[in-house]
């Protein structure tokens, strides 16, 4: 996964709270066995509405999605992150993210920029005034800016998450550096804990 330093581009404003992952990528799309090819399904049902933000001329090619609070609630489907990435989004700016969505975003290199609610409101206003305004999400500096509107706000992102995004790190390789500690832990687990018998035939 490539690292992500700084994202500069147009933004789509999705001024709704509690956008759930069933809306971001409807269940019919979860039958795919690949990590790509989800762009057409992004906000599938809402895109039937010509007035929906993603149908605005200029939305195509946008890099940043600005959304209401508790973005990505509901189902754990990482397909929601893949769909946002496939459409071209590299960052989502919101006052708050659902826990599983936030983890999935960091895993797949989509920047979850958590910005104070009042600042998100100012960004919405700036985008209402100029839908083509350039938005800059700087991962290294942890700031979201709309330079034409004089907006430059910090966003919350833990150090480790920032590092992973910047470097595009393989988390498994990082963990396997602790393989000895994992093995040592395993020797201390009680023997009565449940386990499957790998020799037993599969029950079909």
């Amino acid at each position, binding site marked *: 996964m490539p690292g992500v330093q700084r994202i500069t581009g147009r933004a789509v404003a999705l001024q*709704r*709270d*509690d956008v*759930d992952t*069933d*809306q971001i990528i*409807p*269940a*019919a799309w*979860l*039958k*795919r*066995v*690949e*990590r790509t090819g989800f762009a057409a399904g992004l906000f599938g*049902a809402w895109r039937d509405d010509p007035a929906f933000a993603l149908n605005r001329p200029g939305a195509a090619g946008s890099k940043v999605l600005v959304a*209401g*609070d*508790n973005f990505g*609630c*509901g*189902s*754990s*489907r*990482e*397909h929601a*992150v893949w769909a946002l990435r496939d459409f071209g989004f590299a960052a989502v700016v919101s006052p*708050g*993210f*659902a*826990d*599983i969505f936030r*983890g*999935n975003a960091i*895993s797949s290199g989509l920047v979850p920029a958590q910005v104070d609610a009042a600042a998100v409101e100012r960004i919405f206003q700036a985008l209402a005034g100029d839908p083509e305004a350039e938005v800059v999400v700087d991962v290294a500096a942890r700031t979201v800016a709309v330079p034409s509107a004089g907006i430059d706000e910090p966003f919350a992102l*833990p*150090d*480790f998450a920032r590092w992973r995004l910047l470097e595009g790190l*393989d*988390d*498994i390789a*990082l*963990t*396997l550096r*602790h393989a000895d*500690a*994992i093995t040592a832990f*395993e020797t201390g*687990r*009680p023997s*009565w*804990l*449940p*386990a*499957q*018998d*790998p020799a037993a035939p*599969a*029950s*079909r």
Partner: protein
Amino acid sequence: MSVRLFDKVWDRHLVVSPEGQPPLLYIDLHLVHEVTSPQAFEGLELAGRAVRRPDLTLATMDHDVPTIGLDKPIADPLAAEQIARLRRNCAAHGITLHGLGSIEQGIVHVIGPQLGLTQPGMTVVCGDSHTSTHGAFGALAFGIGTTEVEHVLATQTLRQVKPAAMAVTVEGKLGEGITAKDLVLGIVRALGPGGGVGSVIEYRGDAIRALSMEGRMTVCNMSIEGGARAGLIGPDDTTFGYLEGRRHSPSGQDWEAALDYWRSLVTDDGAEFDHEIRLDASALRPAVTWGTTPAQSVSIDDKVPDPGSFASPAQQQAAQRALTYMGLEPGTAIRDIPVDAVFIGSCTNGRLEDLRAAAGVLGGRHVRPGVRALVVPGSARVKAAAEAEGLDRIFTQAGFEWRSAGCSMCLGMNGDIVAPGQRCASTSNRNFEGRQGPGGRTHLVSPAVAAATAVAGHFTLPGDL
């Protein structure tokens, strides 16, 4: 020092806490299903990595399996391919698979507890947000994404920032006919859809203690609908009674050793939580959702709310959007809302106790003409047990379709869907737009209310029939 249950389980699973990084937690049980795993196995294979602990991994098929015609090939080519992939991946990596046709097949969150695999003090993960269900046993259990599924397959650990601890304390006694579903819908209403974000909930109080294991699973299952990734309940004699004698439960001396540990899994007196909310169980009534998040519910005695009655402009706007989608007018009595479909099942309410509650309402009655009613047991064993009690005949004689186990109409992946514009009383967990099928309208209710509603054709309590 007073320690919380959550900390006891967390601390016992800490493998290492690297400087400047979130700690690695050991995972005791990893449940796998067909929908969120293919990309994880592919990633593993591309990197040339093995599954570290196939013996701590268990797979089943639930999300897009058919619930009728199991003797025929799966008609949907995409679902068939996903299911074939799971078979292939499990075979290649030595993972036990309870596939379609097995007596052990079923919804992941129904089969884990049923097999005795979910035990107090364990860590349980699955690529499914309703993994919180297993918290009913005092396990720390949460949903993960596919990249994390791959991480657990490869390392048997998960890198996790420690969440905050929230107490949801429910004192008092639930009234006659008020169920765990009504209780958790009340809790989610109090929390709001994002109130639990960043937290693990411990459910406490008399009303929680009085619940059966099935009821506790219903409550913990919907923790995620309040934003909390996990919810747990301290184990007690109800828990131990449920576990004793199950296939994977410890036995003999091991049972005694396990019990000693399990009895230590309580939040010590005086321990403090980062947040707490309190509810009075006796004030709860049967709940029905009216909107498009599980937090938008009212009592069945109530009316569809006026969006103007909400405090913030954002809530007002959300309520208006929800009512437009749901095709509802403010001020309509909930009991006057007609339904087109009824769904009884899911990881929330698809266990034997739920089917008994629904069947108990139906004896000698019939589903109202024009209403499509479906019962989908949570597992093949639940189906078999229900049939042994004759529940299947009660359902079919009443006009319900009696199906095989799976997630089915909870998320409509397998073709069991609510048609556009149709209204469904559902015992599942999510009333999001299009959740049960594009354009479908979902109202979440308990199994008994779902059954009574099927008979009346509009929202009804069993006692009203």
